[in-house]
């Protein structure tokens, strides 16, 4: 076996620091060419050695690539990196953050079953869960996750998972992950955390008991506003066989000759299933080019997040002093009601997405956005460029007034995603826009 089994030169990634894994996890030199940067494997399909190899791949008896809807080497490099950065077991990339959310629930929720989600979510997630998921007969109960007895009640009513954002969009809200993980564990349910706004550099939900993590790679992971992408990371810690509540993972899968994923793959089960069944049938796979750009982004994640947070804090502090600003909701401010939670869960900084209220309500909110010169008026976050939007008229427009208020997207609310520019320029731009509002 000498040609196939050289001594592994590296040592365990758990011994390496976060910044090292950001650059190296999942991405050694290409074994064929020596290419040091990860190649973009722009291919639809992969050759088989012979008929037996093909059969083994289709039967999930061996690891390897068949067709890029199910897996691709560039995408797999990003999956490994995401798993490593989050401290998880495996990851599945998807065409978008929203596709990752469908993939996350797909093995867990059968038709007619329920899950719970925080009321403080990105508006698009509220819409996805409340409008589209019911078409699959997946029912979502929205719950105020700061009301623990309400959380216990929905879990007792059969919610199989609780979905929260660690740092919630549109901003300033930090979720008490450890406490919620205690409740889901006691109820035999999963805690699924959208870690998009925090990124694994600021917060690692698995360390607080989360079972699955989802990401929109569209934001800080890629970091330059270049891609639409997503990922589901599995902790590998949920015991599907013992639970018995997740037949998709513990019972025979007819399309794979009655194979039981949890029995056959152990802690790898969720991620194998997400590729072999989820991506196979839902088809929302990440493109190799998007995986490459996201890999490139993750190489500088810590550096960028440090600057994002520093700039955001400076802008937030400046806004609190501004006469036209009613309030600022940034968890990094000493006055934030989430200050303590931020110190616990986000010790390296409270992110760069937050909201503030303009005096003058809806009209004033819209005007501030339109008067900016440097801030880009667009519906995204997590870009090197600073971004501004008025959620009530855009991202959260499809919600009811009640849902908007619960999500922190009332009429006077302006959302910022602070970029990496010179901070004095950002302050000056907002000053001019507020003066004109």
């Amino acid at each position, binding site marked *: 076996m000498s040609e196939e089994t050289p001594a592994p030169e590296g040592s365990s990634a758990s011994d390496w620091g976060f910044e090292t894994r950001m650059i190296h*996890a999942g991405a*050694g030199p290409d074994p064929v060419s020596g290419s040091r940067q990860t190649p973009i494997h722009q291919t639809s399909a992969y050759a088989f050695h012979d008929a037996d190899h093909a059969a083994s791949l289709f039967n999930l008896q061996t690891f390897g690539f068949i067709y890029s809807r199910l897996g691709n080497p560039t995408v797999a490099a990003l999956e490994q990196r995401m798993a490593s950065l989050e401290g998880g077991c495996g990851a599945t990339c998807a065409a978008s953050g929203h596709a990752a959310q469908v993939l996350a629930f797909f093995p867990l929720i059968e038709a007619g079953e329920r899950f719970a989600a925080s009321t403080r979510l990105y508006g698009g997630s509220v819409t996805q869960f409340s409008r589209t998921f019911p078409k699959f007969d997946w029912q979502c109960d929205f719950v105020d996750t700061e009301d623990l007895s309400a959380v216990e009640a929905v879990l007792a009513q059969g919610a199989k998972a609780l979905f929260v954002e660690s740092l919630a969009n549109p901003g300033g809200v930090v979720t008490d992950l450890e406490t919620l993980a205690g409740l889901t564990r006691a109820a035999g349910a999963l805690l699924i955390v959208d870690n998009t706004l925090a990124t694994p550099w600021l917060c690692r939900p698995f360390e607080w008991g989360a079972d699955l993590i989802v990401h929109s790679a569209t934001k800080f992971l890629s970091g330059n506003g270049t891609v639409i992408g997503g990922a589901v990371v599995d902790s590998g810690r949920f015991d599907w066989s013992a639970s018995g509540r997740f037949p998709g993972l513990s019972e025979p899968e007819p399309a794979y000759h009655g194979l039981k994923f949890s029995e056959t793959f152990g802690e790898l089960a969720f991620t194998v299933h997400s590729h072999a069944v989820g991506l196979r049938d839902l088809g929302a796979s990440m493109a190799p080019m998007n995986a490459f750009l996201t890999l490139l982004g993750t190489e500088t994640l810590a550096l960028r997040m440090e600057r994002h947070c520093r700039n955001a804090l400076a802008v937030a502090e400046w806004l609190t002093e501004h006469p036209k600003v009613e309030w600022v909701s940034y968890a990094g401010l000493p006055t934030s009601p989430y200050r303590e939670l931020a110190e616990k869960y986000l010790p390296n900084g409270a992110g760069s997405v937050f909201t503030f209220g303009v005096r003058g309500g809806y009209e004033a909110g819209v005007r501030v956005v339109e008067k900016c010169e440097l801030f880009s008026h667009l519906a995204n976050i997590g870009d090197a460029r600073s971004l501004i939007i008025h959620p009530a008229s855009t991202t959260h427009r499809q919600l009811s007034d009640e849902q908007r208020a619960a999500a922190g997207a009332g009429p006077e609310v302006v959302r910022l995603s602070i970029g990496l520019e010179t901070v004095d320029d950002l302050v000056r731009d907002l000053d001019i826009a507020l003066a004109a509002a």
Partner: protein
Amino acid sequence: MPSTGANIRAVASPLRYSDSLIAGILRRVRTIAMVGASPNWKRPSNFAMKYLQQKGYRVIPVNPRAAAAGASILGERACASLAEVPAPVEMVDVFRGSEAALEFTREAIRLREDKGFEVVWMQLGVRNDKAAAEAEAAGLTVIMNRCPKIEYGRLWGELGWGGFDRGVISSRWPRPATRDERAG
């Protein structure tokens, strides 16, 4: 029949094995006696056996029922017990429950000299600390609660193809095998 995926959380204190220990075993071993190998191709043991064969190991199934029927599994005649396994076999891979692991480990210790056993490997989900202590006292290397298929894929890259964190980082580009190395 245990599985690669039996209750990992139920296992008491976590077991830590260095990559170099596991890699050393997988490089040294050529032949494996797989206790509990199933003739049913849908069973996890059959998956693991087929994969290890593809990587160049000889895997000899130990399965009394299959042996009584004179059956072969993946081209290898099933043996009724470890005593029947033709020497030399460097590793015993226990694909049976944690309790049964004691009996097979003791048999491996008895047959150690005869067969050339060096390693007792208990599958993912299988752990028996008493058996491990006895085997180690007898000079055998013991690995518990791990799957050689997964470890092979983790150490030599294939597991990463499935999106799993291999826990391996290296910036070296290994030179291709020489003619002699290819010839084995």
